[in-house]
């Protein structure tokens, strides 16, 4: 049995102190801690369903070792907004019909958040480029692009 190492990090503002083996991915750790909104679609970094923010930067949690999160702040889709108080990006996904099966949605929303933080006024082409690492098999991406475009507009207005 591999040795376990201490890890302290925060998820959606809450502090966690755990012990993990060095081969455990951040994806597996987050899911075992109950953050099942972080989805596992391939565990090879090909699909983007497991995307989370690590200190504001998007990462595929399946390609990130849990121990790399030492001292970091992780944000999942549940950290952005709640059912009663959705983030503008989440609200736009709902309004524009950007969600079908919903399995890609948490990763897609996280990627959109990281992107709009850097580029608050994107073109549709830039949005497509930004989400090109997140696969969706249901929607053909169009309503996701619509949603991100609309969210960007709303968030610009709010500034």
């Amino acid at each position, binding site marked *: 049995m591999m040795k376990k190492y201490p890890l302290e990090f925060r998820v959606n503002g809450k502090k966690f102190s755990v012990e993990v083996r060095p081969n455990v991915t951040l994806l597996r750790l987050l*899911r075992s801690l109950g953050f*099942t*909104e972080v*989805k*596992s*679609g*391939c*565990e*090879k970094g*090909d*699909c983007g*369903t497991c995307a989370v923010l690590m200190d504001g930067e998007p990462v595929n949690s399946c390609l990130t070792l849990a121990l790399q999160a030492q001292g970091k702040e992780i944000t*999942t*889709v*549940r950290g952005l*907004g*709640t*059912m009663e108080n*959705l983030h503008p990006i*989440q609200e736009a*996904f*709902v*309004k*524009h*019909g950007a*969600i*079908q*099966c*919903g*399995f*890609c*949605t*948490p990763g897609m*929303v996280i990627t959109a958040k990281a992107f709009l933080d850097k580029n608050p006024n994107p073109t*549709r082409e830039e*949005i*497509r*480029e930004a*989400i*090109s*690492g*997140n*696969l*969706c*098999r*249901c*929607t*053909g*991406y*169009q*309503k*996701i*692009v619509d949603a991100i475009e609309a969210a960007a507009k709303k968030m610009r207005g709010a500034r």
Partner: protein
Amino acid sequence: MELKEFKVIGKRLPSHDSIEKVAGQTKYADDFGLPGMIYGKILRSKYPHARIKRVDTSKAEKLDGVYCVLTHKDVPHNAIVTRFGQTRAVGGFEGIFRVLAESKVRYYGEPIALVAAETEEIAERAIDLIEVDYEEMVGVFDQKEAMDPKAPQIEEGKSNVIARFKIRKGNVAKGFEEADVIVENEYMSQFIDHAYLEPEAGVAWVEDDGSITIRVSTQVIEHYREIAHVLGIPESRVRVITPKIGGGFGGKEDITVEYYLALLAWKTGRPVKIVQSREESLSFRSKRHPYKFRYKTGAKKDGRIVAVEAELISDAGAYMTLSPWVLLYSTVNAVGPYNIPNVKVDSYTVLTNHPPSGAYRTFGAGQACVAYEQQMDEVAKKLGMDPVEFRKKNYLRKGDTMANGVEVLNTVALSETTDRVLEALGPKPKPSGPKKLVGFGIASGMSSYGRMIFLHDTSRSKVRLELDGSVTIECGVQDVGAGQEASLCQIVSEVLGVPLKKIRIISGDTAATPIAGTTTATRQLYMSGNATLKAAMKVRENILNKASEILGADPAELIIEDEKIKKKDGESISLRDVAVACAEDGIELFCEAQFNAPFGEVPDPETGQGRVFPDFTFGTVGAIVEIDTETGEVEVKKIASAFDVGTAINPMRVEGQIEGGASMGIGWALSEDVKFEKGVAKAQSLAEYIVVTAVDIPDIKSIIVENHDGLGPFGARGVGEVVLTPVAPAVINAVADALGRRIKELPITGERILLAIKDQV
């Protein structure tokens, strides 16, 4: 009672479950666990065709943390007869399916043994400790080669050809004599994976009374019957629940992990979870049937088609499962939405040493469309006619007779959908540079909605008005994300005047919800939509009768909207008060209703004449592509899709289907390929199996045509599958137009394009 002015139907309302999904609340199959849960893993064959000489599980059993190791000897009914139809079993195409391999394996990855252990890691180590001695056998990996009587037999002592169908309409010999041109071609379609984002997963446990519950991502909860049969226990002692499904597309129509979960839970008494990896999903799960086609078409100079002769051969993989029925769909769809007097179709499905092929969005209609729509362009070319004009001359119309001798009963709006597509695309643009080629392609297609009528399909749904005026729907639909539940909510909202936020739907549970049949065959809106409408109308009738007493008005004079029952003069009473009044008087505030599809018999096997489907949905897709002749890269510049959906219950969701279907069809034409080599999948990750990303496709122009004469609620037709049917051939035809020649191998990769350009020079 007629509902003419819609308040909710036809509105772009967000689905009721999109908020929970976007907030990360939805618990998919793998997002659920129970105390004391252990983990299952599957030992899979290392050869595509081999005898099993010995299986030794003793070392695995001794490993600490292992709860059980199972082989076929531990399965009460390991060899089961696969039949088709959850409602009515239709004979003639029974196949033997083995839960775990016995004396031989028939495909690479076939399950041989199961392990349940304390952790996934221990289960994996135990799998590695199981010893299997194989004696490799010669395999067969091509459906045409497998038809040879000398080919290795997959089910020993039996022909590999497991089903064949025929269509005989008119006299093709006479038709070809009358023809001015005859065009003959061969086409193919490749192995395609569903590539849903959620791999197959589930949890099973034993209830206090000893019965088994399986919570699994499935399009067919009614498999509980087969699971009970494998375990040798009554059907009433197996319960299947499906949570929200992370994509299905037909890939979760067959049983995935249910047998393994049930067996491991039953043997250990512990809750057991199995989650398949992406590699397992890509390598071993069912795929879209590859086909080999031969088409011969005769046409007159004026563009009228006089005869079509077609041969279709599909690769069923190593077990029969759904292959005969997929083949029947292809056969009935073989000449597409065209009025052709003389038709001869011969179709075959053949066992090989590939993983079992299975259901995949369009269920065989899409492969047929890939062939007949390429052939339409080739015939137009030979006639020197515009492919659009040529199609228009031959489109089916209401009242025409289809290839299977059945009259078209409802509108076929193909001329309109085609015109709308042309208008949306505009003229073919000039190439963007000297090394670029531009092409335009069009394809029309059809797909049935509702199951084959000889299955005598039914669906049940229950609507219950609560005493505070809110509503509960109970219906056993499986929601794959296309709005299966949401459409039912919208129907009830319309009929009972209750806002969506006050409607709750409970779905997908064989023990708790009325059986609503499979989420397959584009049937849920049609079947469960009609059942739910029927139930809601009964509740509405009871409410209106009570309200008419209270308000002193004729029930026919009353309207229900905004949670009120209103008289024409404006006097009203709240739905809640009427509900309370009904309850006091013992008037039923609920109804469980059943909807029956039209029932029929299996068509004549020698002629294929006879109705197979309740109805079809028709439409057209057009594409403009640009090819870079230096890299071989194809860019889809524009794509437009138009379908007559009857009535759009929710146009936003219909567009979502059209857009998703378009992206899937572009992948089919240009990039997706599981690529089996000697039975082993070469694409084992989503880096190697290329589905389209957001940058690979343009904005899709969705065009919704509504003729309001479908068989679904409020005149709706099903759209879930047909939106994919003509997409790949439209793109393929556009590439052929650009290149001036046709590449008949799919997918049309950059490499194939460069080779074609090189050949031409």
